[in-house]
């Protein structure tokens, strides 16, 4: 088990914290680590910045995320990884489409050639709006920006402008973006989120059509997803029970 010392912890909204710490292994955008809350649990977390001190952004749901979000500077943060296949970098114009905490892993892709569609339930759930210049905001309730879903904002844009589109968020949101972009462009990558227990391609909990999201993903191209009919349709629960989305 690796550990590092928390360098900083900034609360960025009601239930979300950004933590920085130094990592020895290089990290690439889209990769993740399994963070251990000793005696509590272990969860996969992506990077909202891949440069040292790297940054993770954690939303509190249950006990493990709460433990991690509340780690104070000077405390030890335990992890294994980095794991997973990263996003493909491009030099030209980029569009990122993120919903909820799904915005976090897209942040390392942001530079001055990047546009973004950020969506969330309400205004207060939005994060990182201050870090992006060309920003399209979408909220479910219309408290900020367009009222609706990320795909609604996308439909108003000229997708041919972009050399690559990167998407991360709840699978249902990604599925709607996928359905819209299918047959329009091949230059799209999605970062999938499925229940992960091992993180290293052994336990089958994250699999989609026989592919391990933790090992062969979490990043998949739109082409990859064409062969995965479980995408947006079914997945296994923590027990291994098939769930229809």
């Amino acid at each position: 088990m690796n550990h590092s010392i928390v360098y900083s912890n900034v609360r960025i909204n009601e239930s979300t914290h950004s933590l920085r710490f130094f990592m020895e292994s290089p990290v690439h955008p889209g990769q993740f680590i399994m963070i251990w809350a000793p005696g509590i649990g272990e969860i996969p977390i992506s990077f909202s910045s891949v440069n040292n001190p790297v940054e993770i952004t954690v939303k509190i749901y249950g006990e493990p995320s709460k433990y991690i979000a509340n780690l104070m500077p000077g405390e030890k943060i335990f992890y294994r990884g980095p794991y997973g296949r990263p996003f493909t970098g491009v030099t030209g114009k980029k569009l990122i489409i993120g919903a909820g905490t799904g915005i976090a892993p897209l942040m390392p892709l942001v530079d001055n050639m990047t546009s973004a569609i950020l969506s969330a339930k309400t205004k207060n759930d939005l994060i990182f709006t201050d870090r992006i210049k060309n920003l399209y905001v979408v909220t479910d309730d219309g408290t900020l920006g367009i009222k609706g879903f990320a795909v609604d904002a996308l439909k108003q844009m000229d997708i041919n402008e972009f050399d690559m589109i990167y998407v991360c968020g709840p699978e249902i949101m990604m599925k709607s973006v996928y359905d819209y972009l299918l047959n329009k462009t091949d230059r799209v990558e999605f970062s999938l989120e499925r229940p992960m227990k091992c993180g290293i391609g052994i336990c089958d909990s994250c699999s989609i059509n026989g592919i391990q999201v933790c090992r062969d993903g979490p990043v998949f191209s739109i082409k990859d997803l064409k062969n995965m009919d479980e995408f947006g349709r079914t997945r296994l629960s923590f027990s291994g029970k098939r769930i229809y989305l």
Partner: protein
Amino acid sequence: MNLNVDIGIKISNPFILASGILDENGYTMKRILENGAAAVVTKSIGTSERQGYNPPIIYENDPVFLNAVGLSNPGIDNFKDEVKIALESGRPVIGSIFGKDAPEFSELAKKMESYGVSAIELNLSCPHVNGYGMEVGSDPDLVYEIVSEVKSRVKIPVFSKLSPNTSNILEEAKAAEKSDALVLINTLKGMEIDIASKKPVLSNVYGGLSGKCIKPVGIRYVYEVKKETGKTVIGVGGIENVNDAIEYIMAGASAVQIGTAIYRHGIKIFNELNSGLIEYMDKNGISNINDMIGVAIA
């Protein structure tokens, strides 16, 4: 060149996916069957849905590999569809089951059989209800009862997977005598402590050691059991490459299962094992894999 072996069922090569590794989702089993595995063993399935232990469920620090999944499974009734998906590959699926007593094992076996699996694998390493820290498999009377009852209730072959956490493997093997094959070995009990946090690394504290560390233990059990009982044996434990598989076969295994090595080598290991075996047999002038089984037994 003949790579077919007979372990109660006939399979087209000796390489089988071990229980508990990438065999919970039917699509994954199907993919593995389409990529070189002669058969897959499903995750061990029980009567009802179980969450298993909280993560961390694995700990890896080469050469150590520990897991404590905690028999998480969707329950036998929810598993039907997964078997169905896996069977689309056209290759055999072996249904692994676990229970606390003979009636439970029998019920599970019958359901698995009805789903179309080709054989049943009894996971006898589950916790013994009456024995503190003991496993079902280290109670010979219980093993005898389970195997007898399951055998009398299903028509397909039955394999018994024995535990290495024992002082007398031959007694266990004897108790499981009615099985069509013995599967050796399950994981060795072990644990690690992270000294920086002063805490056990697995949330269940204790786990099972697998991978290269346990190969000598697996080879020993396969050799000893084959030598002393002559029964059909399926070898499992720490197989990382074709030489390891050949070692198990020479020790007496008719087929082998691969689990942990998938972590390092990926699913492609099955195709690699097949081509490695063909190359080895070619080079050594062996035309039938069955001629290699148990040749190291003196």
